[in-house]
């Protein structure tokens, strides 16, 4: 029903697990961590900024740092604050704007990306926690000009209207079919239950995913 189960969503609990095994959520991290804890958590990963000096914000107690993010197989240096989300780092700093910010609270799935092969809400993931991870966005889904079969199916079935939710639905669909190339209609619905579309394209999205699954099984 209208309540969507967390189990069915992109993995919201484990996505911010840091390499050291410490679990952080965006909210918990900000609430629980004092300035020193922030420094301790991120210091090993801070790259020397190009200017080589602390930014003005750091002098005021707002710390920013240049980190490196691996997005769609390319390495990018980006200046972020400890609180900067992966979504904002991608969108505002790197102009990788496929992931959309709609709710900014992990409620809608529009910002969904893959991190080390697992789906995460990029609005609920700190940019600093994404260092050293392989991040895949919708921009990396096609092979050059050749669309991924799921993208092709979305086009063919008109599984998009305004298109703002589409990148998130595509990432969830890909994750779903990567794990199960022959889903039942119910499994498709469950697999997409972390994504919200307001235009109401769901029926065409379901058709597209089923059609893409068939195509992919045939070697696509």
């Amino acid at each position, binding site marked *: 029903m209208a309540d969507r189960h967390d189990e069915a969503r992109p993995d919201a609990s484990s996505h911010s697990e840091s390499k050291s095994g410490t679990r952080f959520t965006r909210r918990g991290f900000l609430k629980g961590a004092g300035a020193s804890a922030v420094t301790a958590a991120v210091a090993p990963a801070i790259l020397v900024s190009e200017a080589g000096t602390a930014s*003005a914000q750091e002098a005021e107690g*707002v710390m920013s740092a240049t980190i490196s993010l691996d997005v769609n197989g390319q390495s990018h240096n980006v200046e972020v604050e400890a609180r900067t989300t992966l979504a904002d780092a991608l969108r505002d700093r790197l102009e990788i704007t496929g992931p959309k910010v709609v709710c900014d609270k992990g409620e809608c799935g529009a910002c969904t990306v893959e991190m080390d092969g697992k789906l995460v809400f990029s609005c609920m993931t700190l940019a600093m926690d994404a260092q050293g991870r392989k991040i895949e966005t919708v921009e990396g889904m096609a092979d050059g000009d050749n669309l991924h079969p799921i993208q092709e199916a979305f086009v063919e079935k008109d599984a998009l209207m305004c298109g703002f939710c589409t990148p998130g639905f595509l990432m969830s669909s890909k994750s779903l079919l990567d794990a199960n190339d022959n889903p039942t209609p119910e499994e498709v619905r469950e697999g997409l239950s972390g994504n919200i579309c307001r235009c109401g394209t769901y029926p065409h999205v379901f058709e597209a995913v089923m059609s893409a699954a068939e195509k992919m099984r045939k070697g696509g």
Partner: protein
Amino acid sequence: MQQKMKTVTITIQEDGEPREIEIQVPDTGEGGWGDLSKNTYINKPHTRVDAVDKVTGRAKYTADIKLPGLLYGRILRSAHPRARINRIDATRAMALPGVSVVVLPNDDPEVFSRECRFAGQEIAAVAATTPEVAEDALHAIDVDYEVLPFVVDEDAARDPDAAQVHSDRGNVGEPRVGEQGDIAAGFAQADVTLEATFRCQVQSHIALETHGNVCQWEGDKLTVWASTQGVFSVRGELAGHFGIPETNVRVITEFMGGGFGAKFGARKEGVICALLARKAGAPVKLMLTRKEEHLATGNRPSAVQHVKLGATSDGKLVAYERSNYGTPGVAGSANIPGAPYLYEIPNYRIEQTSVFTNAGPMAAQRAPGHPQAAFAMESMMDEMAEALGMDPIDIRQMNDPNEARRNMVAMGAEHIGWKTRRSATPNSGTGRIKTGMGVGSARWGGGGGRTQAECTINPDGSVQVKCGTQDIGTGTLTLVHMVAAEEFGLKMEDIDVGIGDTNYPYSGGSGGSTTAASVSPAIKGTTMLAKLELFKKIAPRFGVEPGELVASDGNVFVGSDPSKSMTWQQATAQLGDEPIFFHGQWLPGYSDSGVPGVHFVEVSVDTETGLVKVDRVVAVHNSGMILNPLTWASQVNGGVLMGIGYGMYENRIMDPATGYMVNANLEDYKLMGSTDIPEIEILRYDEPERGVIGIGEPATIPTPGAIANAIYNACGARIRDMPFTPDKVLSALAAVKEG
């Protein structure tokens, strides 16, 4: 085989005055779109021309625009539902590194007020180098409020002793009355009279792309990227506000993440963005947050309807009385249609009022007023049918003056198996899960106009079409390609189309289900007449009249003798070096207004938990001549689902104690998700002779009423209060048991 011509009357603007003139255009038959079976594009399903941009992440929405030196804007909003600002001080905010500018009430009293009338009202704004710093700056603006009494509940606000939302008028507006005949005499004729009260909640729009703009000034020229349903309405409002000519303002909307009625005009956040950019001397992006969307960008007003309906024993409706009110928040109207919805009733009286509350102002939302009216009327029709021992369909057919809708009801009933699969006795199933079937209907206007376009045919054969409409997700860009390609006998990708820009010819806002009916006739007329200009140059070479030529499949030839032919490029090469340029406008004869819509639904009700699930919807719709059946079906699906969301889940909840909206997010504000989607079957009722008619709105109207009727049919519980949540179903079931 000379093309027949016909005379049409169009209105042109001359020195600012409208003037009617007659022009000659090719006569393309009834409905205007010719023999549909011969078409390549029109009336055939086609994927969106911008679909690849949308699936690859290449599509750049307003929220995605990045400019050199871009600043991020945020708006500070009233923390109280009713307060007066004694002092506001941005000293601390301005001292934060990265904060560029702050604008306060005194900077623009038209936008900001020191009188706060809802929690979320705009009181100041900032622009900073990063979104994070902009957020910090909001917290560093010190506001000294004098907190005042407030009211957020429409029933409480009707009390004469309630806190007054506005100082210059009462909370309850002037009643609007609609009447016909003599209701006393009508009710005296009635054999059965029923009375009931229906309640509809406030619904948020929730376009996924929030309201927002990117504004950039160069001197007194302003460029705006806007998430809007009407680029020209944004231009007009900003030019007016800043006292500059409209020619100095350019508004661009290339991709747009949904509107549903709340994105017309620059609105406050648009003006604030431009203010910040002007003061900062730098471009500013100001996208609202999800919370701000719920609080301040509009909503569908509530409706409380006391309805009295009288019928004779044979089912003829004879009298109707309705008194209704609702809250538009601090401003606007909560009125719903002012005559009995759908059915012909000789005697009626309707009195309705809007009740101001200290909550965010309403905005038009997908079929304003109609789903509310349809819910109450269609529920009453079922109650009356039961009281009279009639089939709910029979009483509808007897009282519905619209022949197309009667046919559509019959079509849907046949398809879903109304006579064969539906139990005529409510609550007849056994076991915990009970199933039922219900029907509801809609009427909508739509219609077209207010659109200009221009077309250039270049000597090399390339064709450009420009129209200042915008594609809000409905497929407008695709239909411009389709209409132009059909007219020139070219491929859709051969047409260079420009929309979403005030530098292009005027087109009205995308709303009211009018866009397809406005844009397609304008493109048809413009390309058709541009083509005729080309034919005038070619015809002498074949020794025929221009109207005897046909453009099809990349060739231009004589209709009666296709051997007399040249390629499109050979034809346009005859132009020498001067392109054909034609500025055209919407023409009558290619579109219509006024459509019915009918939804049948099947539900299952868990009688132990009260949980209702919509299992299946049969949606019967009529768009005259459907331009693109693929994108049309998407819109029907979307309308059906938005109606289910409104009927079943969505609800803006205001806390009467604090005056805040307590569910201003996408988790506690319940939206339907993928596991709630029923099977939807769409039936087309085509009337191609009427031309193009819009679909966005009729597709959402009937759903809640049909669900309410299906719930009753399933379990005998009549729910008159939306949304149909388990608590209400259980209460109604308990009442049924108690008898």
